[in-house]
């Protein structure tokens, strides 16, 4: 490192750990998010700038950490996460009917967010330690490592985060070679189950019918999704208004800052979970396709990195992280456009919200690290 502040040297230093294609995609997404935010919530732009800076810094730091180091912090991170989840269950702050937050000194944190990173790290680490002798028993142990925090988060209750954590763990199991004999039946049962819920929605959504294992608000979300008009002023209002926003956008949208649904307050949570509706109301199908293409490129790059990763750990981690991005994007766009229940998942890299953005960027940084360190670790 040169002591002189030569801009070129600095730039080289900054760019050194980064992966070019991923960085470009991140900049494109951040720029697009900024443009949409100008319309959705201009007063939050400074905060968005701060959050984005922190997130990109986190990404840069994560990109500098070699996969070996990541492996060594995986288990401690998991243990810390678990401890914090227990602490939340015991002393957590209750807000909006859910116990998710933990006060530490001046700020409050949401430990479940940590698990989104710790979970794939830990499971990838576990399978790396068992490399060459992976048996069915290992999948049981991994499944247990996965189930404990997922159930604790689901109990808070926070369905959205528990789905994301469960998905991140499941992706590791999947790439580690979980048998199709186990995956397919579950997938089939899932499809049949969802199909039958849709088919019998009228009956099982009647008030008084209890759903085993799910809370009343979760049942309500599913039922509202099946028939938003059943609750046009309550939960259904969000879905009805967001589909109106999307549909009224048409091919090219109403124009930047001209979304009536957005600006006349019909759209709920317009800077956070429902920002996709703002984007598509103002930029139409073209705007939606743009963000979908960016996500597809991001995922393809991630899968490419995973395919070229040298160790089992980095392969599993890269594959799982990539599919996490996909899960975020798919669930969010699905719920805003009314084909998935509203579960509180942000639009990755676009929605306002510092914690999620930092988590996601840490993931991207880890992908970059895997890509940059592939030769040095190679056998």
């Amino acid at each position: 490192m040169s002591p002189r502040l030569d801009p070129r040297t600095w730039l080289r230093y900054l760019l050194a750990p980064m992966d070019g294609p991923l960085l470009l995609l991140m900049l494109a997404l951040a720029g697009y998010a900024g443009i949409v935010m100008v319309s959705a919530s201009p007063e939050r732009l400074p905060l968005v700038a701060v959050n984005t800076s922190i997130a990109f810094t986190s990404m840069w730091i994560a990109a500098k950490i070699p996969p070996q180091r990541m492996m060594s912090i995986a288990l401690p991170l998991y243990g810390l996460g678990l401890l914090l989840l227990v602490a939340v269950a015991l002393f957590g702050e209750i807000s909006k009917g859910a116990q998710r937050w933990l006060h530490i000194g001046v700020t409050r944190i949401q430990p479940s967010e940590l698990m989104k990173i710790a979970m794939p790290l830990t499971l990838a680490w576990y399978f790396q330690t068992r490399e060459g002798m992976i048996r069915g028993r290992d999948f049981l142990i991994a499944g247990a490592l996965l189930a404990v925090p997922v159930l604790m988060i689901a109990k808070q209750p926070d369905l959205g985060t528990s789905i994301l954590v469960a998905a991140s763990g499941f992706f590791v199991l999947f790439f580690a070679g979980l048998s199709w004999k186990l995956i397919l039946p579950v997938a089939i049962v899932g499809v049949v189950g969802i199909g039958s819920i849709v088919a019998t929605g009228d009956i099982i959504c009647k008030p008084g019918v209890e759903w085993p294992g799910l809370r009343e608000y979760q049942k309500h979300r599913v039922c509202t999704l099946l028939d938003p008009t059943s609750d046009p002023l309550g939960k259904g209002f969000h879905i009805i208004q967001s589909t109106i926003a999307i549909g009224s956008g048409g091919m090219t949208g109403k124009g930047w800052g001209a979304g009536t649904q957005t600006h006349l307050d019909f759209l709920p949570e317009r800077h956070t979970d429902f920002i996709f509706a703002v984007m598509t109301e103002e930029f139409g199908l073209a705007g939606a396709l743009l963000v979908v293409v960016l996500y597809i490129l991001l995922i393809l790059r991630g899968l490419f990195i995973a395919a070229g990763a040298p160790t089992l750990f980095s392969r599993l981690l890269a594959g799982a992280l990539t599919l996490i991005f996909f899960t975020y994007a798919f669930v969010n766009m699905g719920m805003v456009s009314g084909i998935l229940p509203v579960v509180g998942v942000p639009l990755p890299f676009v929605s306002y919200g510092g914690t999620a953005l930092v988590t996601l960027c840490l993931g991207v940084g880890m992908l970059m690290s895997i890509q940059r360190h592939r030769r040095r670790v190679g056998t």
Partner: protein
Amino acid sequence: MTAVRTPEQDLARFRARLAVAGVVVFVCFGLLVARFFYLQVVRYDYYSTRAEDNRISLVPIVPNRGLITDRNGTVLARNYSAYTLEITPSKVADLDATIEALSQLVDIQPKDRRRLKKLMDESKSFESLPIRNRLSDEEVARFIAQRYRFPGVELKARLFRDYPMGSFASHVIGYIGRINDKDLARIEESDEAANYRGTDHIGKSGLEKSYETALHGLTGFEEVEVDSGGRAVRLLRRTPAVPGNNVVLTLDLKLQEIVEKAFGNRRGALVAIEPATGGVLAMVSTPTFDPNLFVDGIAPPDWDQLNTNPDKPLLNRAIYSAYPPGSTFKPFMALGALTTGKRTPGYVMGDPGYFNYGGHRFMDDKVGGHGSVDIYKSIVVSCNTFYYVLANDMGIDAIANFLRPFGFGQRSGIDLPGEATGVLPSPEWKKQRFKRPEQQKWFGGETISVGIGQGYNAYTPLQVASALGALVNDGVLYRPHLARYVVDAKTGARRTIEPQPLRTIPLKQAHIDLIKRAMVGVNKAGTGARAFAGAPYEVGGKTGTAQVFSLKGAKYVEGRLAERLRDHSWFIAFAPADKPKIALAVLVENGGFGAQSAAPIARQALDYYLLGKVPAGIAPEDPAGVESADDEEHAH
């Protein structure tokens, strides 16, 4: 998942799974894009309409209701602007406590509370209902200073309907009241729902009801952009309201006033018509009521007082009550006799003072009879026997057929709601009226009673006045009407309500002239002579007495009968006799002999209408005078 595999095998399997994941990603994103395409392209029109509906709200601008004036421009119904305090019950947690707190600021009477309770029973809880009307400036100021204490209570500037003449002509003008469920159903049926958005009053009776469409006007709209909370953000477009038309009546309020005062506290009715047009000059029904009481929901004590009063002040006797016409029927009977050829002008009969029919003796009211009686004399002295014989000779069918074209026993078609039909007796009518076969049969003796205007005969004062109008108008019957012009409140353009001839009854001029001459004779030398002594104009008339109570042969002595069982007193008149400008019918309930009670009222009416003579105690010119329309528009 076997224990040992080469790293190459592991890598190959891993890459295969990456490929599977890639496929799943593409399929899922494909699904999303298909969904976006469906929403944004296939269903674009639907969702863009929904977004517009969300965005735009129509705020109605309620039109000013038209004025009602008499033929001389005296205002009978108008609007004025005032503040009202309104409560939306559904937005108020504790209604009684709120009203109690409000009563510290503004004067709230027990009757205001009772009226609110009544309105609440009739309305939905989210409607805004008045607790106090017409607040003083001081009360407005006091409330505004403390309005933060009263969520769900609003101060509204509103137009109120006002009837400056109070109880005068109240039955004719009618009143407006708050729209209730029945009105709402009618509005929706006539496809007027959009025009009544924002309007909360509607004509309930009288001209206010029959000219509702003209008076109401067209509701305007403001298209405003609203946010999700319903707050207006900006005005997009404005369609101004078209104010309701003013209705100018044929009615002469001064004449109306003189007649109402002449009735004093007697019950009865008067209808005066311009024979050549059918225009109603006065329509009185006593006792009257104050229509102002109804405008914002009548207070229960006022309602009870009006509704349980045995004198039935709400009843418009002029069009809704049917009475036997008594001897006022005789000129029509005589004209029928001449027209059908049953009698000639020169026909003379000897009157013994009675007529025997079917073992019953029908008595004349003069013992020993009137001697030799011809058509002329039969009317002047009101000879019953002449008409007993005549009715018997004509037969009930000929009587009914001759009188039907005059409008007897039919609704006249006047521009007022709630007109009664009355009864023109005939065998067919009896068949329909009664159920049992033995009741349905027509008896000859019944024809005899009909001949002197008793029996089943029952006509409204309007029908009698209208029939007299046709008689003195040489057989041309006009539809009676109260509205003369409908005036556009903005441009002042008048649309004349054209007089509508209903039919021309085929009559011989000589016959008409004879009857009219005989009726003039009534007021010169007959039963009306005392009432019309010294009248400087030539006036035709006829007294009548309708039996309320059958004496079964006993002699009628007025003092011995309870007031309500006394005979009704009739008088019909027209003047000037050669070219009648006015024809009228007066009925005084339980007034006894027609010449006593009814004829003097007719005299006062004619003296004013023909001579401009105003009786003592009535101001010659009304101070209320002519007022200009209030043109300001009023948004709700």
